[in-house]
């Protein structure tokens, strides 16, 4: 598709112009194609591990699927959902999840806020805190849980050892064998693991507050508490919302920590909803039940995320 030039151009020159147009067109096609090319592999990999698993899970949840009888799996409609929801363990795990989530979200938010305020202050010792604050966040949750398990051990745990040496207790306390203490232990370990991230988030928020605001308030004679209450806290609101929602989701989905620290026990006192789903699949070998539970968990988190998006939008 060489373009005819009006003048009597030499054959050679004609060719170069044709080539020039040709190459320009391939560049144009390539330019249009490039963004799809650049996102294609990530999208494909992510799609493989998203679409298929979701369809698979939803499908299995409508079948009676026992891992002991993998060949025989009849369609049973919503029976899995009905059986799971009406069971005692479901109610128990929901209550446990609610208690755990509330305690962890409040604990992590307070921890994060206090640490961030300290890190943002001019106190010299806070520098040491700055260096180590990320450590619990950076390690595997399983390992974090194990460390706490040895610390809290009722026969030779170091926490019992310290309390005993200080004369605070006469007998060793079975932290993980008592239902209430096990819950508290789990919550303390979770705050230890999750708190640092919240602290960094709050710190980022604090650093966005212009220092003139503080100076003006101080000149007007505001006390530290009043400055915190009427300037810092309101301006941290958007960050606080993100932290609360993020920590709520993390708490509802917690699994690794329970797996190593309490194994859902003693009894079923730390059996949270994700642990219940795991136990249905790998202990009771009832894949249908476990997957139905997982679908329920997914729906709960989806609702939370929709609420979150609505709040974020109304904030803006």
């Amino acid at each position, binding site marked *: 598709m060489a373009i005819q030039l009006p003048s009597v151009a030499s054959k050679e020159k004609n060719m170069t112009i044709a080539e020039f147009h040709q190459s320009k067109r391939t560049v144009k096609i390539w330019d249009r194609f490039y963004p799809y090319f650049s996102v294609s592999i990530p999208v494909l990999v992510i799609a493989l591990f998203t679409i298929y698993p979701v369809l698979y899970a939803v499908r299995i949840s409508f079948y009676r699927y026992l891992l002991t009888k993998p060949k025989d799996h009849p369609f049973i409609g919503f029976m899995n959902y009905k059986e799971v929801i009406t069971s005692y363990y479901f109610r128990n795990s929901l209550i446990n999840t609610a208690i755990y989530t509330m305690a962890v979200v409040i604990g992590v938010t307070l921890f994060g806020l206090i640490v961030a305020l300290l890190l943002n202050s001019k106190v010299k010792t806070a520098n040491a805190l700055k260096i180590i604050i*990320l450590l619990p966040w950076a390690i595997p*949750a399983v390992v974090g849980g194990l460390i706490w398990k040895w610390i809290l051990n009722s026969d030779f745990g170091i926490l019992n050892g310290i309390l005993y040496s200080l004369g605070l207790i006469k007998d060793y306390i079975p932290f993980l064998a008592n239902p209430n203490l096990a819950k508290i232990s789990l919550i303390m370990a979770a705050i230890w693991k999750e708190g*640092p991230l919240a602290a960094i988030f709050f710190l980022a928020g604090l650093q966005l507050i212009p220092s003139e605001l503080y100076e003006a308030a101080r000149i007007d004679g505001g006390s530290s508490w009043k400055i915190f209450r009427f300037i810092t806290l309101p301006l941290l609101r958007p960050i606080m919302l993100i932290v609360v929602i993020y920590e709520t989701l993390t708490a509802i989905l917690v699994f690794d920590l329970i797996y190593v620290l309490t194994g859902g026990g003693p009894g079923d006192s730390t059996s949270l909803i994700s642990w219940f789903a795991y136990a249905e699949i790998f202990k009771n070998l009832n894949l249908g039940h476990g997957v139905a539970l997982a679908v329920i968990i997914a729906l709960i988190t989806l609702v939370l995320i929709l609420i979150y998006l609505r709040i974020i939008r109304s904030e803006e």
Partner: protein
Amino acid sequence: MGIQLQRKLGSGFINLVIIILIIYILGPFLWMAVASFQGENELLKHPPSIIPKNPTTDNYRYVFTGQVPTSYEVKGQLRSRISQEARLIAPALKNSFIVAIIVLVVNLLLGTPAAYSFARIKFRGKNIFYNFILASRLMPVMAVAIPYYVIIKNLKLLDTYWGLILIYCALTLPFTIWFLSLYISNIPRDMEDAAMVDGCTPFQALINIVAPLMAPGLVAASAFAFMTSYNEFLFARFITQSIKSQTGPVIIASISGNPDASYSLISVCITLGLIPPLILAITMRKWLTEGLSASITFR
């Protein structure tokens, strides 16, 4: 006088809070390290000695060379508390390391161009792809653990590095792409526009102009990808079967569930497993903090 005293008390209280927080954060790590240098009999005392009376490197020697610590030979009944499994920690950490490094490289090679396209180029279907990538991370892992196993099994990748790498890429790429595209949108685009007018392709603009400007973001994204892969447990437990591919967290969880394992050996495994993420968290502190801050304050 009164105000000064009040101030002194106030700063004393703040310092006390900081010290308590430091003990809470650091104590567990220190205790694991201390315990790994103690003999079993000292750890099982009532109460255990916080500062080791006879510190020993025997536990480490056993894990690396298989030489049984002397303290176990003396006490006959304790000898069984030696677990062969503890010796798997070194190859397991090697597996973790290889997998995490490959995932990191894949994230940079595939994630950066994708993030650039999302941040800078207009193309049809962009929002659908972008929202799909973000939404993919909202699935609870428990729901997809079994299907993931089925996928990896059908691809004949059970108990291989590639099975783990594939899953971890699917887990980390959404965050990398989201994070880097946020980062790129916060870089002024004048220079790229000028380069494009001069006939630069988007890819050339990314490599020559944007990449150097987004270096801190790339460092942070790499660290996140590495940590996510290095720390992952649930999927690794499902799709690995032997030390050929089992990762650090899998072996550590398995050893500590072994009633035969000695507590000092478990401490050794935990301490060894924690060294890479702790070094990363301390040396990369600035980038990690900046990256995390950016992820919550950028719009």
